[in-house]
C-alpha cells in the first residue's frame, strides 16, 4: 500500500497546550517514506510531546497529524513504534523476550515470537545474549535490545526519543554508527528527538530545529552525509562542520524568548 516517496508523517498547524502552558505552536512537519527526520531543540521545547502526538499517545490541541495515512489516535498508534529515552527493558524478561514483546502482544506463541526476534539478534550482533536479563547487559547493549524491540514491532514509523542520551560519549558514538547501519539495512521512516546536534546531523536526512517553549520550527537543515558508513570521517567533513554551525546558530537564536511571549 505504501508508495515510494509518499509522505509517511505529516503535521499541519499542530499546537499543543497543557492547561495554560503552550508547549508546541504551529508545527508544520513532513517526513517522507523512509526518511529520517531529527528534531533538536532546547529542553522543555515539546520535542517529546510532539513524538507522543505523532505516535497516537496524545492528541494535539489544535491542528492535524497523520502517520502512515492514519489521522486518528488509534490508527497512528498502530503505525508507530515508540522508543523511549530510558530503554525500559522489562527486568523480568530475557533480552530476547523483551525484543519479542510486540509479537507476544499480538498473540504470537512464545516459541514463534522468540524465533522471529532471534533472527534480528543475529543480524545485529547480539547472538549469545538472548537469555541474558537486562541487568546483565551493558548500557549500549540495552539500547540495542530496546531498538530491536521497536524494529520487531514492524511498524512503518519509528519514533526515537533521545535514544542514546543515557550513554557515555564513546558508547554513544558507537551506537550512532550501529543505528546508522541498522537503518541502512532496514529502512524506516524515523522521527528522532535529540539534544545532540552532531547525532541529529549524522543520523538524519533532515534536521528540524525547534525554539524554546512554546516550540516552533525555527530552521530546517539538510544533512550533508546522512548515516555514512565511516562516522568519524563524516562528522569531521567541512560540509558537516558547517551544517553543525548553522544548526547551532539556529538553536541559539531559537533559545531566546519567542516574539510576543515572555516579558
Amino acid at each position: 500500500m505504501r508508495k515510494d516517496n509518499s509522505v509517511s508523517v505529516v503535521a499541519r498547524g499542530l499546537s499543543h497546550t497543557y492547561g495554560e502552558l503552550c508547549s508546541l505552536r504551529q508545527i508544520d512537519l513532513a517526513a517522507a517514506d523512509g526518511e529520517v527526520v531529527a528534531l533538536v531543540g532546547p529542553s522543555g521545547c515539546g520535542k517529546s510531546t510532539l513524538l507522543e502526538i505523532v505516535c497516537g499517545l496524545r492528541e494535539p490541541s489544535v491542528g492535524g497529524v497523520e502517520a502512515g495515512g492514519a489521522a486518528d489516535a488509534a490508527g497512528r498508534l498502530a503505525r508507530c513504534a515508540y522508543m523511549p529515552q530510558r530503554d525500559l527493558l522489562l527486568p523480568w524478561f530475557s533480552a530476547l523476550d523483551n525484543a519479542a514483546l510486540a509479537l507476544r502482544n499480538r498473540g504470537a506463541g512464545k516459541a514463534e515470537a522468540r524465533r522471529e526476534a532471534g533472527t534480528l539478534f543475529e543480524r545485529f550482533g547480539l547472538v549469545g545474549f538472548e537469555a541474558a536479563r537486562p541487568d546483565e547487559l551493558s548500557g549500549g547493549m540495552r539500547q540495542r535490545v530496546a531498538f530491536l524491540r521497536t524494529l520487531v514491532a514492524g511498524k512503518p514509523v519509528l519514533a526515537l526519543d533521545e535514544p542514546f542520551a543515557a550513554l557515555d560519549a564513546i558508547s554513544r558514538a558507537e551506537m550512532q554508527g550501529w543505528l546508522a547501519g541498522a537503518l541502512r539495512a532496514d529502512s524506516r521512516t524515523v522521527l528522532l528527538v535529540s539534544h545532540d546536534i552532531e547525532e541529529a546531523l549524522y543520523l538524519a536526512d533532515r534536521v528540524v530545529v525547534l525554539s524554546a517553549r512554546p516550540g516552533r520550527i525555527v530552521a530546517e537543515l539538510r544533512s550533508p552525509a546522512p548515516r555514512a558508513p565511516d562516522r568519524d570521517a563524516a562528522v569531521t567533513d567541512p560540509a558537516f562542520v558547517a551544517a553543525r554551525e548553522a544548526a547551532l546558530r539556529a538553536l541559539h537564536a531559537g533559545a531566546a524568548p519567542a516574539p510576543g511571549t515572555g516579558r
Partner: protein
Amino acid sequence: MSVRGALRLLLPVALIAALIGLWQIAASTGWIAEALNLKPFLVPSPAEVGDALWSNRALLWENAWVTLREILFGLLAGVVVGIGLATAMRFSRVLRDAIFPLTVAVQAVPIVVIAPILVVWFGYGIGPKVVIVAFAVFFPITVNLLDGLRSVDPEAVKMMRTLDASRWAIFRRVEVPTALPSFFSGAKVAVAVAPIVALFAELAGSSSGLMRLIIQDNANFEIARVFAATVILLVIGVLLVGLTALAQRLVVTWR
C-alpha cells in the same frame, strides 16, 4: 559454605541451644518455681516439654491438624479474595471508588467481636475459623497488591501501547511483575497474622484445635503439654514465614 555463611547458621542455633540449656538448669533445679513461689510441676523443664510432646503426639497432632487446616484454608481464601479485589479495583475506577472504603471498614471490625457471632451462626466446626482467618488476611494482600499495581511506570505503559499491547497484556506483562514484590510484602504480613487469628477464632468456641487443647490443659495444670502445643505453633509460624520468603525468592528472580 563461607565462614560468614556458616556463622549465620551456627550463631542463632547456638543461641537457642544456650537458652534452652539455661532454662533446663533453672527449671530442673527448681530456681524458677522458687522465685515465683510455685509448685515445681507448674514449671516444666525443656526435657519434660519434650517428653510431653512425644508421649502426647497423637493428641497434639490431631489438634494441630485442625488448627493448621484453619490457617491454610483461611490463608488460601484470603489470598484468593485479596487478589480478586485488587485486580477488580485496578481494572475499574468505579469499582475501586465503591469497594475500597468498604474494604477498609470491613477490615476495621475487630476479630474478637465477630468471631463469637460467626460461631453462633456457623457452629463449632472449622468453617467459621476459615472465614475469620480469611477476613483478617485479605486486607494486607489487597492493599499491598493494589499499591504495587498502581506503582507501574507510566512510560513502560506507553511503550507497551505502541507495541500493540491490549489492556490485559499490559496487566500481565508489566503491572503484575511490577506488583509482585509488594504482593509478597502483603503475603508476609498475612502469614504472620493468620496463626494468631486462628487461635483467637478457636478461643471464641471450638470443639478441637490447639487453642482449645491449651485452654483445657491450662485449667488442669497440664503445663508441660501447653508448652508442647506452643512449640508446635512456633514451628508452624516459622515454616509459614520461611516458605513465603522462599516462594518470593523463587518467583521474583530479578532485582
